[in-house]
């Protein structure tokens, strides 16, 4: 598969170099919000949505800053725009759809400080993706993030019912699960290559 083809970009971001399990981005929510499938999935969806916003914002910012040759400001610009966009989305959701806010909104502030979001913006810039590619990349990354957090949540729910020794409860268990998941995802290395 061609490394620049949209399908490869999507697969790469979602599975082969999964943001969470291979690139170590967005670990905090993966450890924090993956206790229950019921919350993990909305969290994943909310993150994926913000990734999309971040990707679009970064694309725009790159054009503007590229025009002024001020690329070094990109980081500040990305994060400022992402943070504001998230805040805005939060307000809008809170105002117009309280049920949705209760389901997703509480995660939104958390997402601002999620590496995966900024990661999308930074990586698509460094890969010099064009608009469609950026879009695909962010969608892939979002799908990968949802996959990872949902798998984690499922496993954690299952392990919650297990007779886990006290020392392994909590964060250590989540990390072990993430480690094994990441080990299993290594099977996808080189896929499509």
């Amino acid at each position, binding site marked *: 598969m061609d490394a620049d083809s949209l399908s490869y970009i999507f697969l790469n971001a979602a599975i082969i170099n999964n943001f969470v399990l291979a690139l170590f981005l967005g670990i905090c929510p993966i450890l924090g919000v993956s206790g229950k499938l019921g919350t993990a999935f909305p969290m994943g969806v909310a993150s994926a949505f913000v990734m999309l916003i971040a990707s679009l914002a970064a694309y725009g910012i790159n054009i503007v800053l590229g025009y002024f040759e001020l690329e070094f400001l990109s980081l500040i610009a990305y994060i400022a725009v992402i943070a504001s966009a998230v805040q805005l989305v939060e307000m809008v959701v809170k105002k117009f759809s309280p049920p949705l806010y209760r389901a997703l909104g509480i995660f939104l502030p958390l997402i601002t400080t999620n590496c995966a979001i900024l990661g999308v913006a930074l990586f698509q810039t460094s890969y010099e993706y064009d608009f469609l590619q950026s879009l695909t990349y962010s969608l892939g990354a979002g799908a990968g993030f949802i996959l990872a957090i949902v798998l984690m949540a499922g496993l954690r729910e299952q392990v*919650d*019912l*297990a*007779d886990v020794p006290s020392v392994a409860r909590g964060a250590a268990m989540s990390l072990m699960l993430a480690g094994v998941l990441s080990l299993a995802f290594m099977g996808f290395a080189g896929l499509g290559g």
Partner: protein
Amino acid sequence: MGMLSFLSGRSFPRGITPPGRKAQTRTEPIRRLSFAPRMVLPLTQHFGKPARPLVQRGQEVVRGEPIAEADGWHSVPLHAPVTGSVEGIELMPTARGPKTEAILLRTHPGDSQTVRWAQPQDLGALSRRQLLETIQAAGIVGQGGASFPSHLKFDVPEGRAVDTLVVNGCECEPYLSADHRTMIERTEDVLAGVRLGMQALGAPQAVIGVEDDKPDAIAALEGAIEPGEPIRVGILRAKYPQGSEKMLVRSLLGREVPSGGLPYEVGVVVNNVGTMAQLGYLLPRGEALIERIITVAGPGVERPGNYRVPVGTPLRYLLEEVGFEGDDPSRIILGGPMMGNTVAFLDVPVTKGVSGVLVMPEAAQAGEGREAQPKPCIRCGRCVEVCPVGLNPAELGRLAAKRQYEVMEERFHLNDCFECGCCSYVCPSDIPLVQYFRIAKALNRERAS
């Protein structure tokens, strides 16, 4: 035969086939048990409100006389099983545990103990409602185990038509053969009961479901049904829990009682053959339910068999009569080995709903399967493969161990479990699944109220 009936679909999915172990009693004709010197008659022997005592301490009663009246429509009266005197009304232990009020009768020794209280009636002339009242007055409750008042069961709500009376002659529990003997020896009573039941329900037809391991019962019933009568015998594959009404309705008619619903919602009412025999025998004579047929069996019983036992006979007396020595530690089980309950007090009497008494000495239990410490579930999935209701006992068990009872109910349909015990029976890890589910249901019920 089994193979063929499987092909003809006369069964339900999943379930188990434990060894029948009925040889001990199935060929024994029904015998009468002598009268115990003291009878214990709890005021609640049925599902519903307790009966109200009509007698006082010291009062003399004759056999068949009402000693407690029904407290409303959701209750049934109680009748004296012996001629004797009222010793008192006291708290007495029950099979379930807590003590409840019971009338104690001292049997008159030397009395002939014939029924002296009967009010024969012309049943054909009665309206449906009157027929139901007659059934209630006779104190009849389901003989299949749940002790549900029969008149209530026949009292189908307005607007619900019942097209079939299903009669439960499966007796799928190992060891038990009381229904089997009833069908053979009291065929006419059963059929008379069925006809009365159809009359009470206004049901145009009746099906008697019998498992294929009771060919003699099938032959007896088929022989006794009058030609052209809308009653037929449905032959079913011997499989546990074929006798559960939900499974039976599925096997016989291909209908499924809705989850959380009752059989009449699919046009069916299910009754045990024993109940039918009681109806058919008692109503025309105007007598009341004061004795029943019980299988007494198990490795610890010297004279196993099917006995006609007065209601109220304490277990201690019954067991002595059948030659139980009581040297070994034993489980005394009311009902069958799959669903029956052990008792803690031998003062507990035989009540209207008890269909069998099993005695399992410790020594014999080895042969009946191990008793071992529960081990963690290995997720073998056997329980899922046998649960006739389509539950996931493995998941339920894990949740129960972590006391997540609400999740069990909300996501895994705990309340659909009818505690048949198939899952516990097959679990190689010896997990007391049914026990978990009972706790969970009890707690959920309490928390909801």
